[in-house]
């Protein structure tokens, strides 16, 4: 199809020199890239098809036989997963748990990072550069480094206050926020430095205090960056396995990734669960990816240091 398009007159007219030089190679190029694109689609497609095939057919015939016998498709797997309803440890419960972690962690990071970035860019206190450099250094600190001490910290806090965040949603959220902040501040600061200082000064002359400047001038102007950050952070937290695994330890509610991970050792018997759950778990990130691709790409570009 693309090869046909390439040969179509309008393009040939527009870039005649290139077209004349490259036409034979272009056809090959289109074919190769087509195959690559196909290769990239297959894993996702396989997950979808397996989730729609009877569980009993797994390991008997390959999922690709669906192309010759499409009648085997059924929603039965989804019905089975949903049949347990919101029982703890089930797929729906896991989805809700994931959302309960992801949404606060995203909102907190976006808000706190925006505030901190404002302070770093427009504040007038000394040592702003030094603080920023520390944050840049923290960007690449692996979460693994903090797991054990934070777990201890949670336990210690539990002894003192009676509320031990270990094994609770707040415990997971607090950890995610901390490790989302350096990137968030980095991204927002980079964006805020592009806002002309004149605007802030105009605001100060117009009578705005710091909070008003932040709320009425900087925040609205930084909205695209905040959106990028929020989307990036959302997908990051939604997809996390390790932090949830550690800090939800002992909790009867799981995140979606923990739910899936639970079946890995009995894969052959439960692949229908994994496939169906896998599809459910990627629905929201995928929806976000397609709705906000522009912001997401921007976030990725900004996050190229993480």
């Amino acid at each position, binding site marked *: 199809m693309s090869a046909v398009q390439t040969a179509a007159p309008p393009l040939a007219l527009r870039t005649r020199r290139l077209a004349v030089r490259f036409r034979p190679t272009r056809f090959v190029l289109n074919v190769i890239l087509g195959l690559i694109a196909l290769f990239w689609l297959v894993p996702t497609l396989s997950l979808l098809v397996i989730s729609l095939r009877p569980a009993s057919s797994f390991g008997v015939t390959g999922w690709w036989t669906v192309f010759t016998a499409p009648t085997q498709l059924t929603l039965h797997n989804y019905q089975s997963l949903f049949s347990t309803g919101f029982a703890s440890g089930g797929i729906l419960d896991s989805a809700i748990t994931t959302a309960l972690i992801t949404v606060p962690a995203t909102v907190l990071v976006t808000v706190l990072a925006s505030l901190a970035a404002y302070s770093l860019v427009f504040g007038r206190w000394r040592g702003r550069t030094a603080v920023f450099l520390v944050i840049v250094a923290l960007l690449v600190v692996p979460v693994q480094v903090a797991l054990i001490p934070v777990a201890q910290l949670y336990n210690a806090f539990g002894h003192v206050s009676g509320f031990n965040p270990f094994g609770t949603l707040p415990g997971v959220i607090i950890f995610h926020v901390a490790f989302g902040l350096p990137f968030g501040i980095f991204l927002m600061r980079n964006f805020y430095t592009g806002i002309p200082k*004149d605007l802030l*000064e*105009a605001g*100060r002359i*117009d009578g*705005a205090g710091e909070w008003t400047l932040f709320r009425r001038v900087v925040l609205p102007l930084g909205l695209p960056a905040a959106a990028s950050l929020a989307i990036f952070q959302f997908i990051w937290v939604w997809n996390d396995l390790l932090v949830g695994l550690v800090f939800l330890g002992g909790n009867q509610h799981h995140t979606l990734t923990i739910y899936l991970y639970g079946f890995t050792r009995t894969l052959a018997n439960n692949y229908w669960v994994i496939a169906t759950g896998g599809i459910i778990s990627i629905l929201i990130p995928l929806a976000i990816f397609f709705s906000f691709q522009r912001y997401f790409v921007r976030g990725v570009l900004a996050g190229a240091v993480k």
Partner: protein
Amino acid sequence: MSRVVLKDLTKRYAGGNLAVDRLNLEVGDGEFVCLVGPSGCGKTTALRMIAGLEDISGGQVMIGDKVVNLLPPRDRDIALVFQSYALYPHMSVFDNMAFGLKLRKTPKPEIESAVREAARILDLERYLDRKPGQLSGGQRQRVALGRAIVREPAVFLMDEPLSNLDAKLRVQTRAEIAALQLRLGVTTVYVTHDQVEAMTLGHRVAVLREGRLQQCDTPRRLYEHPCNVFVAGFVGSPAMNLDRLPFDGTAARAGEVGIPLPGAAAAAARQAGLSEVVLGLRPESLSLELDGGGDGATRLSGAVHLVEDTGADAWVHVDAPGGSSALRLVALADARRLPAVGDRIVLAVRVAEAHVFDPATGERLGD
């Protein structure tokens, strides 16, 4: 009442270099004063200290009768028009102008009428719902002005507000600003690097150089009595011819010719025991004698090096014999009767209009 007084205003940066050095200036109520000077002369820093955007290292800023050194910008009762206009890109023209009033909790109807009035004055009524991004450069500039005037501040501060406009629009807007200031009668401090702008707008013009005030006077006085070589060279376009020439007690020697100096200047030079002076001659003090003849004026002969024809006027660059090196003088000529490059011509010097400066200090000699 709403005068602006700068007393020994100083700005010293962390590195120790002085951006503004003991600047003393009084801007009377309703007066329009331009701060002018080359880039880096401290004019914008001074303005920003008046506005409260820059910390003051020393001295005082008084607005009205109070010292405002410690007041944040919002409490100084000023408005600032930025070079970049600094319009809030996410707000409509109306909201841009209304923002300051809203923050001051002005009642809605009042805001509405103030903004409408400003928009009417500035011919912006049709654009009130637009965002700054949808406006032309001239319109944005007017919105920036509008934002300043709706607040009815005691002082207008303007930081090169015309420098982002094209030449034609700049001239037009310049006239509008002058008319607006006259009409509103608000004390105005206006920063520019363009001396023409300063001369046409300011009731008085303050010339700054390297953080120091050189001279603050009316445009006419500045032009006719520049107090030093810097001001003499800075004010006027094309610039004054400034040349260092041997001084023989009464006249400056240009080759064979002696250019007699005005009496007071010559006396001052003699008193200082100078053997050289800097002679300043405005292009219009030199005239071409194409037909020869004329009265007993001092004459210099030379060769035409370049002719710049601007239409109404023309500037003729002439190489004439000078002191140690040849003089290159720019003379005003009648554009209808121009010499050709290479022609030998004679320049008549109106010696009474000559400016004389001390070559060592650059200070003006005589009156």
